[in-house]
């Protein structure tokens, strides 16, 4: 397993956001984590990269427990995350936002040229401040910035949030190329259709627990709706 999350619990003050969540991702897979607002999807990703300081349980990467390894070192191991809200650096131009993503110098396919080839919309805006881009372009930039580290594991948090469907589709169309370059992808989505289309396997979180998991092709709409909203089908 490339990523193994074993009985992880996570807290914000007195509030517990995750309860004994376990998840496995094999190398080369694309796994979607779906769930309603507040189900704990983003918290799960934040725990994997080490941004949640109040968490218990074990996260292992490539067989190695990540306990005590700070976020910036996890990137060096090959775990990159596109954070919710994109978090583009406003003081940096588009090109600088990409370059700063390569600080750990992991070798691989992605560099400024290949990322701009993947997202041509960014190419003619490379000298502009990153935050002057449209929402969709900022999302592409955030993905590109994460790719610059040539990650083995790419975590995508709510890529489609606030974007027009057409833009979302164009961003998802780049996923096969990203996985072909060697990245295993875990994506967090509220949009179930998008998640099922793009992923091999799906985990559905409900109020901090895994309510359903399985191969995307095997799950029925009813199963997902039930797990997503916590409804009993007979109700």
């Amino acid at each position, binding site marked *: 397993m490339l990523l193994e999350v074993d009985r992880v619990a996570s807290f914000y003050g007195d509030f517990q956001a995750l309860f004994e969540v376990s998840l496995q991702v094999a190398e080369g897979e694309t796994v979607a984590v779906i769930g309603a607002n507040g189900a704990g999807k983003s918290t799960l990703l934040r725990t994997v990269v080490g941004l949640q300081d109040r968490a218990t349980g074990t996260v292992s990467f490539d067989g190695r427990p990540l306990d005590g390894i700070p976020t*910036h070192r996890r*990137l060096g191991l090959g775990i990159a995350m596109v954070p919710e809200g994109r978090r583009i650096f406003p*003081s940096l131009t588009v090109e*600088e936002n990409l370059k*700063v993503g390569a*600080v750990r110098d992991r070798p691989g396919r992605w560099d400024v040229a290949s990322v701009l080839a993947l997202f041509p919309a960014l190419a003619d805006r490379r000298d502009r401040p990153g935050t002057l881009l449209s929402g969709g372009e900022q999302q592409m930039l955030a993905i590109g910035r*994460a790719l610059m580290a040539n990650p083995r594991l790419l975590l995508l948090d709510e890529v489609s949030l606030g974007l027009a469907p057409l833009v979302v589709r164009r961003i998802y169309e780049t996923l096969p190329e990203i996985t072909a370059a060697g990245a295993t992808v875990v994506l967090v989505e509220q949009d179930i259709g998008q998640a099922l289309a793009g992923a091999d396997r799906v985990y559905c979180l409900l109020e901090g627990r895994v309510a359903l998991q399985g191969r995307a092709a095997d799950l029925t709409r009813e199963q997902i709706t039930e797990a997503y909203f916590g409804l009993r089908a007979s109700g």
Partner: protein
Amino acid sequence: MTWVNVVVQGLLLGGLYALFATGLSLMFGVMRLVNLAHGDLSIVAAFVALAIVDAVPVNPLWTLLVVVPLLFGVGYLLQRGLLNFTLRGNDPLPPVLVTFGLSIILQNLLLEVFSADSQGLDAGRIENASIRVSDRLAVGWFPLLTLVTAVGVLVGLQLLLSRTRLGRSFRATSDDPEAAALVGLDHRHVFAMATAIALATVAVAGLFLGVRTTFTPSVGPTRLIFAFEAVIIGGLGSIWGTLAGGLVLGVAQTLGAQLSPGWGVLAGNLVFLAVLAFRPTGLLGREVPA
């Protein structure tokens, strides 16, 4: 012609103020940390230079080769070993209290080691040599060297910030420390590098001060205030603003002193207050998000 002379001398003095303000501006820009020991650290640099000159008879300007790397190292360790711990959370008070305490400790250490006597660094002929522009106007070589050095340091810093990997990491970490961690930047190291570079400029400033005038262990806070005024007048977060702020402060002080010998510092303070009242973002500052 007298007034031209006054303004020119003011600009030259402003070079020294800009040099002092550089480190303060950099540290505030990168990590929103106001280092109240800034002035005292510059005086430490001057005293270290003095100790070297006492031991080895060289021109004090040569001691820059030792003092600048020394303060660079001190800056790194100070940030990594102490100041980083004051930046946890969003409370602005811990860094202020800790650097204020550091300021007092440094002053007393200097007093203990070097006594309260006034000291000076003797750079030889360059101190008094000047270029005669006309009957009424002469430009001193040393003040000119100070101004040129200040411009050089600021240009260098600007290039560092805009062109280098380290500069990008400063800006990224300043923008969003958490997102910076996600791209592999360790804010503890980035902040320590910022303080290291800031204190390297402080070393230069302290040395030039020591050659220009006399100093005692207790003059650090005055230096801090002038540096602070230059940063505010110029505008927070702007490198060229720091230069402009230093120059404006220098000219204001010499103009004030020309009107009446006691009005120099007062005039500088009044300009500072006027900027705070009418243009709080400073002359070249950008809007600071609340």
